[in-house]
């Protein structure tokens, strides 16, 4: 069985700054891996490398058996990778919750095609599972931080991904909302047999949910659990 995600001696430079210098991480299918580290440790960069947005200066990245350096266009692979960014850039964009979740299907629907009934059904099924079905007609920016995070999670899951990447999913949330979102992630990770890679600065919060934990410090990774 190949690893769902495997990073071997990965180095990343942004300009003259070495952000990651010798990262070794492996996530097997259905594992929930957490990468913890302080702010500025390179956690978001790490996720961008896994998603093929940033290219490493050195090292090998394999995702679902594909060596990323061999592909110029990774859109085919991104359709199998759900991403929950730290926070959406669009604070006041007029979009209803149901539309934002349906967006997760856009890559699979194909260019110039309208969403079909099964795409809507999938979006509503995910909203139900994540617990935001009752907000489906509300605008995303009208929701609380925790609810918005659930919308982002639902959108990523609507892709029906094999891999889920989560960038600080609990930032900006109060402690009860943090636990609630982590519980939701954990449950859906098992139900949908996902390989989940989560980055967080809060090692205590993610510990009980993680199969493995890597610590990211000074651009290097080490397995701590």
């Amino acid at each position: 069985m190949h690893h769902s995600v495997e990073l071997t001696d990965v180095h990343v430079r942004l300009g003259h700054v070495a952000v990651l210098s010798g990262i070794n991480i492996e996530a097997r299918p259905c594992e929930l891996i957490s990468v913890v580290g302080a702010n500025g440790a390179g956690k978001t960069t790490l996720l961008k490398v896994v998603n093929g947005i940033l290219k490493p200066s050195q090292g090998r990245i394999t995702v679902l058996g594909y060596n990323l350096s061999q592909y110029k266009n990774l859109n085919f692979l991104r359709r199998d990778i759900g991403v929950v960014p730290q926070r959406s850039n669009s604070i006041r964009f007029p979009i209803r919750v149901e539309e934002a979740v349906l967006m997760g299907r856009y890559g699979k629907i194909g260019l110039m095609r309208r969403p079909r009934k099964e795409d809507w059904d999938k979006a509503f099924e995910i909203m139900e599972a994540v617990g935001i079905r009752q907000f489906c007609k509300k605008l995303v920016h009208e929701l609380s931080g925790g609810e918005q995070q659930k919308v982002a999670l639902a959108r990523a899951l609507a892709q029906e991904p094999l891999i889920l990447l989560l960038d600080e999913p609990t930032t900006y949330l109060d402690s009860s909302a943090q636990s609630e979102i982590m519980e939701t992630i954990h449950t859906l990770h098992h139900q949908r047999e996902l390989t989940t890679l989560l980055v967080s600065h809060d090692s205590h919060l993610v510990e009980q949910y993680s199969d493995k934990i890597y610590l990211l410090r000074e651009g290097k990774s080490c397995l701590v659990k």
Partner: protein
Amino acid sequence: MSWTQILNFPFMQHALIAILFAGIAFPMIGVFILSLNLIPLRFAMMHVALLGGAIGLFLKVDPLLLGLLFCILSSMALGPVSEKMRLGVGILSGYFMTLTLALAFILIYKADIHVLEAFNILWGNILSLTILDLIIVGLISLMILIMVFLFFKEIQAILYDREIALAVGLPEKLFYYLIIFMLGLTIAVSMRLIGALLIDAFVLLPAMAATFISRSLKQTFFFSSLFGLLSGMAGLYLSFVFDIPTSSTIILVASLIIAGCFLFRKGVSRREKVR
């Protein structure tokens, strides 16, 4: 005075046709500008056109043609160059804007070009449109409408969040460059046809008004087109009746619509708070 009387004049017929096209389609470009924060690009295009015009006058080539060519080429280049340099299009537009203006002034001074002649490229007049002008406005309007209709979901994802558009597996860069190209093309062509001042009336103001009251991107496009059409037609009519400049009247009407939409939103949110 009725519309029938006004439309006895051929120049008013042309203006009305231009408003029907531009009023519906150009505000959609305004929605792109506001959502992607591309306002500097609009100014950059004006200055690029000025440089093209100045070079055209220097080389004794049609300044309008060269201005348009410069705008089209720079709108094609801006997206990829900003990506390569890891700079936002807004920042790069600021660079282009100042650089091209400086170059244009040097050329105007050194080549002894009449300043007003060079600036002519920026001032169009909606009341002096030819059939060819109308065809160009019509074609660009159609291109915008077709793009929005065919690629609505891709555009929605990019305007919402480019990172998410990329993450769900859309060719995000391709569509972003297409949006920038259409924006440059619209501004470049319409600058000469309807004037730099009127571009804002058609492109930005209706889109601004629509963002105050819309609850979805479809509504934003719909209301921006509706307001573009309304302000254009009302402005044209009133300017004729009261004998005042058309561009300014259209802008006044559009500004009133913005104020109305803002008050409407205030009222709605106050009612929601009371509930």
